[in-house]
């Protein structure tokens, strides 16, 4: 037997408490899993919350079809190890059926199109709680988000009429047709997530570590040229650079950063000294000052 005393770190304890409230208060929760570091961290916290029982809800990936191949391989391996159900719904299906129209041009991205597919899946399965890895430090509209964030039939976020969250009491009462988006790592920063991955020795996809990649530069950002989904003008020159990704979204809107951080220790050091925010490499936030708030009102997670 272990003789130690345990004091669970405050942020971890808070996240585990939130997971347990979700399972107690909702009938059909689901964990939105992208294969990115935040959703991988969520999976570990969910494991901890219910151990030795299995994670008592499925994972769901809204697949834009523009994923980094490394992420998809990682996703499938993790799901197999955990023995949980993975639901995949494809943005491509909605494009094929003409329900949504694909963007075109230099900044074309399927990121926004995910919303429609997500809302369809929520309706299809009757999910009443969708657990996501969004953090308040990512973006200033997210900083106003609740831990239990109520959405209506259209997935809309009514930002001016949010429920007050006092102490750690979470009010999950909703009407039929409504659902709640749940953010257990709301209060974590990017550095908290990376430090946790380091401490817990959590495996993450290889693109988070520095590697050689064929890239080109646009608007001062580094884009992957190795993949067909990323639009590139002919005059945009391809050069092999040592890079890594700080976030893993749709390939068409996720830029790389120059980096020598080949392992988790170096990544943590890099983040600690970084002078660019994480979403600084996400073109979807740069569309306007209110980009995130607008997408959230429309049901984006």
């Amino acid at each position, binding site marked *: 037997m272990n003789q130690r005393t345990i004091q669970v770190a405050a942020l971890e304890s808070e996240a585990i*408490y939130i997971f347990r409230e979700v399972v*107690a208060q909702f009938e059909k929760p689901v964990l939105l899993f992208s294969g990115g570091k935040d959703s991988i961290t969520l999976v570990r916290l969910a494991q901890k919350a219910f*151990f030795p029982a299995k994670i008592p809800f499925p994972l769901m990936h809204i697949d834009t079809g523009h994923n980094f191949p490394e992420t998809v391989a990682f996703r499938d391996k993790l799901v197999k190890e955990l023995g949980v159900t993975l639901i995949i719904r494809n943005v491509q299906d909605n494009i094929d059926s003409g329900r949504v129209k694909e963007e075109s041009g230099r900044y074309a991205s399927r990121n926004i199109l995910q919303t429609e597919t997500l809302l369809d899946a929520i309706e299809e399965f009757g999910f009443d709680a969708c657990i996501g890895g969004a953090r308040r430090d990512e973006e200033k509209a997210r900083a*106003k988000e609740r831990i239990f964030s109520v959405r209506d039939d259209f997935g809309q976020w009514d930002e001016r009429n949010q*429920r007050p969250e006092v*102490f750690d009491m979470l009010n999950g009462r909703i009407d039929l047709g409504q659902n709640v988006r749940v953010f257990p790592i709301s*209060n974590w920063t990017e550095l908290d997530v990376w430090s946790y991955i380091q401490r817990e020795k959590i495996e993450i996809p290889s693109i988070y570590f520095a590697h050689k990649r064929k890239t080109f530069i646009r608007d001062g950002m580094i884009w992957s040229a190795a993949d067909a989904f990323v639009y590139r003008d002919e005059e945009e020159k391809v050069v092999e650079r040592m890079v890594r990704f700080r976030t893993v979204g749709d390939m068409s809107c996720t830029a790389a950063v120059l980096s020598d951080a080949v392992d988790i220790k170096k990544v943590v050091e890099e983040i600690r000294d970084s002078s660019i925010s994480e979403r600084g490499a996400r073109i979807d936030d740069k569309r306007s000052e209110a980009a995130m708030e607008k997408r959230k009102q429309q049901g984006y997670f």
Partner: protein
Amino acid sequence: MNVLKIATAGSVDDGKSTLIGRLLYDTKSLTDDKLEAIEEKSRQRGFDYLDFSLATDGLVAEREQGITIDVAHIYFSTRKKSFIIADTPGHIEYTRNMVTGASTAQASIVLIDARNGVVEQTYRHFFINNLLRIKNVVIAINKMDLVDFSEDKYNNIKGEIEYLASKSDYKNQQLTFIPMAALQGDNVVSKSENMPWYAGENLLHHLEKLDAEAINEVSQARFPVQTVIRPKTDEYHDFRGYAGKIYGGDLAIGDKVVVLPSQTKSIIKSIHFFNETFVKAKNGSSVTITLEDNVNVSRGDMLVKVNEEPTITKQLDATICWMDKEPLRESQKYYIKHGVNDAQAKITQLSSILKTDFSGKIENPSELALNQIGDVQLKLSKLLLIDAYDQNKSNGAFILINSKTNNTVGVGFIH
């Protein structure tokens, strides 16, 4: 990951955004891209200074109106500690947001404009800090540059606040007075050369020294069960663990406990956290506990040590901060959420409205309106296991929920 949660309240005029901006800027927590965005927006608006509120006012409506409406969470860290600031609007119509932001705070900062001294808003901030029993309160006397860094001015304001504190019923509060000029950075992260008469610490050093663990009041352990874990696998065939978070004290293997409300006695057999077991779990930990005896425990039940039982009651006396447009009135019914327990509650009496400027009470009011704070009595549909808020914050607070809208409409502090 040693995190300290701090609440700030105040308006733009107090220099609150400037102070927060200073903390972010001087701890190098503002990244280049965020700083550039602030510089560009500030220029666009014709300001000749950096408007740091642009970093925190995340909603379009807030930027349009130039006011903070909702609680914003701001994160920064030094080598020693991580901080979360819950930044709340200071106006009277946002009292509920102030209470929300302060509810999880371990420390708070009350900003005072040295030119104006103690104003109506200061009383309210101070009142709410007392109501929520926030132990460490920093009184930041800001804009000292505009009063010629006058020690007399500082002492006058300090005296007024100390007089206010003497009228409060909360005696454990620790007040720290810091004279500042946030715009120039005096006494924010470095010692001011303009105020040699001030011997105390700068704000950041003071905050770094506060120990979040030591602030959490230690009383008696409360373990409300969130969910029961039954894996039903071969390896853990008979495992029956109670998952929850410990509030107010520690629990250890061998502790004699009583399960409430059934009053069944047992002994703690094991304490689990993920795939490890521990002998003892501390206040604030989310763990899973098993008992020696096969007793009936379900969500909402509570494990406590024998002879440390909370009050078991169907009636509550409490102070409530009302958070909904539709006022609270006598004989109305609501859902009550107390920790992980749900019940129905009827307001049997609305005794008084408390004036947030310490000037007393309005007795027997007809209603408690949005942002008002008052004393009520409630009758409950089932037994709840409660402590006074003074004894155990988590087990002494509750929320009221409107059964038609499902909205959280009030927060209560049990007497």
